[in-house]
C-alpha cells in the first residue's frame, strides 16, 4: 500500500449552483505515486469537483490542501502555479493554434534579451521542446506547425494528455482522457498514467469506462448526487459492484439516503 503522506486533500468541499447542490461535503485525498479513480453517474458532481480542484470555481465551503498547505485558488493560473495540471474533457486545447503553441499555452517562452522583454516569443525553442516533452511521455509529434484542428480526435487527446503530464509537478487531473480513443490508444493512455504514477505524481482519473478505472487505479472514489458514497482500494471492487455503487443499487458506506436522517 501507498504510505506516502497525502499530496492533495479535498476537505469537506460544498458547491452550490443556484439551488442545485453540485457537491455536498466531499472529502478525500490523493497521495504521491497514487492513482485515484473518480467515478459517478452523469450529474454526480465529477466535473464540478474537477473545476474546484483546478481553480476554475471556488468552493462555497471546505478547502483544498496541497502537501498539507491550504490553498485558495482564485483562477486556473493559481492551481497551475501550485503544481496542479488538469486535462479538461473535450475543451482543453485551442484548435487554431499549433501543437507547440498549445503545449506552451499560458507558459510561453520568450526570446532572450530585449526582444523577450518586449514580449516576443521563442517559437522555435517552444516547438522543439514541445516535441521533446511529448516524446518523453510517450507521444511522438511531427515537427510541423500544423494546428490542432487538423488532428484527429485521438491525436488531439494525446496532445492534451502529453501537455498535462509534461507540466505536472504534484497532481494531475485527467477528465475522461480515454474518451474518443480506440482500444489500442486507450491502452497507451493508461500506460502514460502508470508512468506518471511512477514519477511520483498524484493522479486523479475520471472515467465512465469502468474497466479502465479498475485496471489503472489504486483507489476508487464514488460520487452520487454530489456526495461521496464510497472511498476504497480498487481491490475491493469488481465491475458489477462498482456499477452497483455508482447507480445506488449497492449502498455505499456513506449513502446519502442514510445520512438524510
Amino acid at each position, binding site marked *: 500500500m501507498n504510505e506516502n503522506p497525502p499530496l492533495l486533500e479535498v476537505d469537506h468541499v460544498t458547491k452550490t449552483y443556484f439551488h442545485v447542490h453540485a457537491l455536498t461535503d466531499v472529502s478525500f485525498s490523493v497521495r504521491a505515486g497514487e492513482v485515484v479513480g473518480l467515478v459517478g453517474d452523469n450529474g454526480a458532481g465529477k466535473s464540478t469537483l474537477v473545476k474546484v480542484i483546478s481553480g476554475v470555481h471556488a468552493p462555497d465551503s471546505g478547502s483544498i490542501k496541497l502537501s498539507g498547505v491550504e490553498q485558495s485558488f482564485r483562477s486556473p493560473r493559481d492551481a497551475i502555479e501550485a503544481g496542479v495540471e488538469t486535462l479538461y474533457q473535450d475543451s482543453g486545447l485551442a*484548435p487554431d*493554434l499549433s501543437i507547440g503553441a498549445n503545449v506552451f499555452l499560458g507558459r510561453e517562452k520568450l526570446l532572450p534579451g530585449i526582444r523577450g522583454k518586449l514580449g516576443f*516569443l521563442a517559437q522555435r525553442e517552444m516547438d522543439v521542446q514541445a516535441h521533446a516533452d511529448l516524446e518523453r511521455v510517450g507521444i511522438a509529434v511531427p515537427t510541423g506547425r500544423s494546428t490542432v484542428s487538423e488532428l484527429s480526435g*485521438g*491525436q488531439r487527446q494525446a496532445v492534451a*494528455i502529453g501537455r498535462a503530464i509534461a507540466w505536472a509537478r504534484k497532481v494531475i487531473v485527467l477528465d475522461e482522457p480515454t474518451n474518443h480513443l480506440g482500444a489500442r490508444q486507450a491502452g497507451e493512455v493508461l500506460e502514460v498514467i502508470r508512468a506518471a504514477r511512477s514519477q511520483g505524481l498524484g493522479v486523479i482519473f475520471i472515467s465512465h469506462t469502468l474497466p479502465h478505472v479498475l485496471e489503472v487505479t489504486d483507489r476508487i472514489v464514488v460520487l452520487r448526487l454530489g456526495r461521496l458514497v464510497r472511498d476504497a482500494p480498487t481491490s475491493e471492487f469488481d465491475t458489477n459492484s462498482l456499477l452497483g455503487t455508482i447507480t445506488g443499487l449497492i449502498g455505499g458506506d456513506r449513502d446519502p439516503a442514510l445520512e438524510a436522517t
Partner: protein
Amino acid sequence: MTQQGVDAPGPQGAAAVVEPAEGADGALERIRTLVRGQQFLLLIALVVLVVFFTIERSAFISQTEISNLLNDWSTVVLLAVGETFVIVSGGIDLSVGSTVTISGVVAAKVMGGMTGTSEPVILIVGLLVCIAIGLLVGAINVLLINVARLVPFVATLATLGAGAGFALVISGGAPVGADSQAIEFTTPKLWVFSWPVLAIIAIVVVSYLYLHYSRFGRFTFAIGSNRFAARAAGIAVKRQIAKIYMLSGLLAGITGMFYFLRLGSGAPTSGSGEELQAIAAVVIGGVSLLGGVGRLGGALIGAAILTVVTDGLVIINVNPNWNQVAVAGLIAAAAALQALRPGRGLTSSD
C-alpha cells in the same frame, strides 16, 4: 467547434503518435493549400486591380495618385488593425467609426483654443487628446463587456451610438476648426509618403509583429480559438480582452487625428460608417469572424483592395454608385474563399 467525436485508431508502434490528419484526396489537399495561401491570392487580386486601373488610366500610378492612395489607405488601415485584434479574439468593435469622429471633434475644439502656440505643439496636443478619447471609449467598452457582461456587438453598438451623438452635441453639427497648416502636414514629403502616413505604416508594422510573434498576440489568438482553454491554461482572459479593446480604441483615436490632419477640421460625421469599412477589410483579408484564425497581412491587403477599388472607380470615372456593389462583391468573394477553409468555414458540418 472542436471536433472530437471521431474515433481514430492510432498508427502502429509508438504510443498515440501524432501526425497531421490525412486529407480525403490529393485534389482537395491542393485546394486547401491554395486557400491557406489566401494572402497570396489577395495580393494577386490587388495587383490585377492596379494593372486594370492603370491600363484604363495611366494616371493611376502617377506619383500624386499613389500618395492619394496611401492617404486613403491610411484612413482605414489602423481601424482594420485594431479590428483584426478584436475579431481574432472572438469579439467585434463597432465603436471605432464614432471614436474617429468624436476624437477628431474634441481635439479640434482643444486645438482651436490654443492661440499663440506653435503649430507642432498644437498638433501634438491634438494627438494626445485623440489618444485619450480613444482609450476612454475603449475603457467604456471594456466596462460594458467585462463588468456588465454585454456581448461585444451590443456593447460597442451602444458606444457607437453614444459617440456619434456626443460628436454632434460637441460640434453643433458643423466642422470644428479650420487649420490649413495641419493639411500641409499630410502632403508628401518623402517621395509619395507624408509624415503621418509613414507613422501609420510604422504602427502597422509593430502591430503585425505583436499579433503574430508576441505573447500578446498568442493570447489574443488563444482566447478567440477557445476561451475556456485559454483561461484553463492560466491566461488572464479578461485582462487580455481589456487590453485588446483599449488597443482598438487607441488606434481609432490616432485615426481621428489623421482625419483632422486631412481635413484641417474635426467634422461631425467624418468617421460614420468607417467601422464597416474596417470590418470589410478584415473579412476580405480572410480573418474569421468566429475568432482564432487570421493574418494581419490579409487585413492590410484587404484595406488596400478597398482603397484601390474606391479610388480606381473615381479615377476611371465610373458611376460612384457602383462602388458599393464592388465592395459587396469583394466581401462575398472573400467569404466564399473562407468557406473552403478546412474546419472553421461556413460549410463545415459541426
